[in-house]
């Protein structure tokens, strides 16, 4: 007695650009869920402080930033209290860095899965990126608390703007992670390069400072970094800082989508050699 008519699979060499085959990803959606669940479950196992780390990490970073950049360097914060000014930026930035780091290492970290069984390989970077959302939600509650303390209310447009900017963060992280995880299979140089990449990217993103310090003619080039658009968007949506999305945001969106699409294509076209190369 069979529950379903057996499917027929043709196994043959693929050439050139493989089809994106996103339907396969849908068939395996439960695996995505389980991978995220496992990442979350295991992350704080055998730690003394457990889930408290999800609170400690962003709060400590915020305190360091507030002291160094707010008090010592006295960077302008658009007239907002520096703690919430930096925390509103650390929120998407923390998600981005976690997603990027875990996503880029995901294939190599799950070598035994890659060399032993079939499943859409894209599940690994995808679930690693999405797993970052749990810490994001926790950090979000901390920010809410801070905002209540500083008596700041988000604007109504936060309701539609936040999900959009959140999506932009995830798309950017996934796009880069697809590229780097696939390259990492062949060249472990990625592991060495990642810390620098995230560090430089942090400087190119208005996390510690306000993007108002960038002079107008440079804004267009600055917008090539999608995370700049994201951080500005978060500050605008949550704290009402700045004037809101301007045409340069479209550049950020375009770059982000380009990263994702090219990442998908590159990943799919190298996917067939993963098990042999890793």
């Amino acid at each position, binding site marked *: 007695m069979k529950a379903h008519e057996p499917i*027929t699979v043709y*196994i*043959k*060499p693929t050439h050139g650009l493989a089809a994106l085959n996103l339907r396969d990803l849908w068939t395996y959606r439960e695996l995505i869920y389980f991978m995220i669940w496992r990442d979350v*479950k295991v992350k704080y196992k*055998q730690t003394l402080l457990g889930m408290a780390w999800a609170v400690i990490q962003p709060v400590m970073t915020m305190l360091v930033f507030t002291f160094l950049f707010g008090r010592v360097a006295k960077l302008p914060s658009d007239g907002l209290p520096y703690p919430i000014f930096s925390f509103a930026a650390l929120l998407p930035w923390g998600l981005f860095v976690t997603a990027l780091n875990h996503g880029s290492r995901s294939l190599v970290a799950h070598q035994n899965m890659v060399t*032993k069984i079939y499943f859409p390989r894209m599940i690994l970077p995808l679930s690693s990126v999405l797993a970052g959302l749990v810490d994001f939600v926790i950090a979000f509650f901390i920010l809410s608390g801070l905002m209540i303390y500083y008596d700041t209310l988000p604007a109504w447009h936060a309701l539609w703007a936040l999900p959009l900017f959140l999506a932009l963060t995830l798309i950017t992280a996934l796009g880069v992670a697809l590229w780097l995880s696939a390259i990492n299979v062949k060249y472990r140089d990625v592991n060495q390069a990642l810390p620098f990449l995230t560090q430089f990217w942090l400087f190119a993103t208005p996390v510690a400072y306000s993007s108002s310090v960038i002079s107008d003619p440079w804004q267009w080039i600055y917008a090539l970094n999608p995370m700049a658009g994201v951080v500005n968007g978060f500050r605008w949506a949550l704290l009402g800082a700045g004037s809101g999305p301007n045409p340069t945001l479209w550049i950020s969106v375009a770059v982000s989508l380009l990263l994702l699409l090219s990442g998908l294509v590159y990943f799919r076209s190298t996917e067939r050699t993963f*098990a042999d190369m890793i």
Partner: protein
Amino acid sequence: MTIAISVQHLSKRYQIGAAETRFRYNMFRDVIVDTVTAPIRLAKTLAGRSERRTNRNFIWALDDVSFDLEESKVLGIIGRNGAGKSTLLKILSRVTEPTKGLVIVRGRVGSLLEVGTGFHPELTGRENIYMNGAILGMKRAEIDRKFDEIVDFAEIGPFVDTPVKRYSSGMYLRLAFAVAAHLEPEILIVDEVLAVGDAEFQKKCLGKMGEVAQQGRTVLFVSHNMSAILRLTQEAILLHKGKLILRGPTQEVVDHYLSSGQAQAGERLWEPEEIPASAAPFTPIRVAVCDRRGRVVDTVRSTEPFHIELEYRLEAPITGLRIGIYLSTIRGEYAFTSFDTDDPQLFESHEVRPAGHYLSRVQIPADLLNEGRYTIGVNASSFGIRRYFLDESALSFNVDISGAPGTQWSEPRVGAVRPRLNWTIEQIVSAPTR
């Protein structure tokens, strides 16, 4: 009959050497040269013009293999290491792509290559069952339905909510196998899993496989264990250096494999750097397992006598020298110990062994060993004076029990030996007749 798997002109090429030579630094100079040329290399690679492209070494792990397998048949795949068995399975389970050719597979493929893949030591047994099930392509509802059955099969009852890092290796393995065994694919690939676990569990696994085959599912079974292949399959293929060289009834293919000397060379040569300085003046050269006809073999039949040979050199005479072997099972239980001068007469005639080149050879009688893999340990010593050399696992070999006593029952037997003993059955009191 429908064809479940159709393999057509399948070939797989692997590139060897290039990566290893590139990443091996022999000298500090190489490190510097490598570092300086790194940007050039990066540019070349990105431009797709790597210098390595010219001097690549290829190996054809599979070379034009074709066969069809009908639905609900059990096919054995045999061949020595490197024959292409694993590559074939990897292609069938879609882990890796073929270089040429085509495979048409009808139905979901489940494989027991991946027992325990995705198991996380920090997760509990329960959590790992769900995780592993999802990795193998099971739906959550399906796992819910089979959960109790899996726990029962794995015999982990009270520990189901304990992290698997606290499990014994046996429990871990049983759980891993249990999940995979309950996948219920239309096509099942089994690779050597039966070599692990205790006898009782092996029996269960074999039972499960037989059950799977009876349910009308197609099974591909790879093993070095010839008696398991004989028990479980009617038909087999033999791979050699990537080519399919024989397909036929299992008995025929196994006989061909065992007799053609394709079974892996059961020989070990000691490299100079493997011999400690303290062994002098004793120098071990080689140990080998030879079949009845003197050919070096990896697999011996328990129904035939075979030889173990030790070749060595003495740079100076040694008094009271004895060269011997320890035989132990793969699980580390000793089967026996024997020395070349065990016989008092030989001991007296070889009181002092002069310098020279020697061969100590011992015949192991037929009907002694049980099925499985055995390890030969080598010892050279003078009793009460000194031990010159010891290699606890110098060489290992397989014992195949086809035709041995009791093989009419398809159950593994405990114990390192499987002697042919003389039993008698007498009726002492006959039943009253009317």
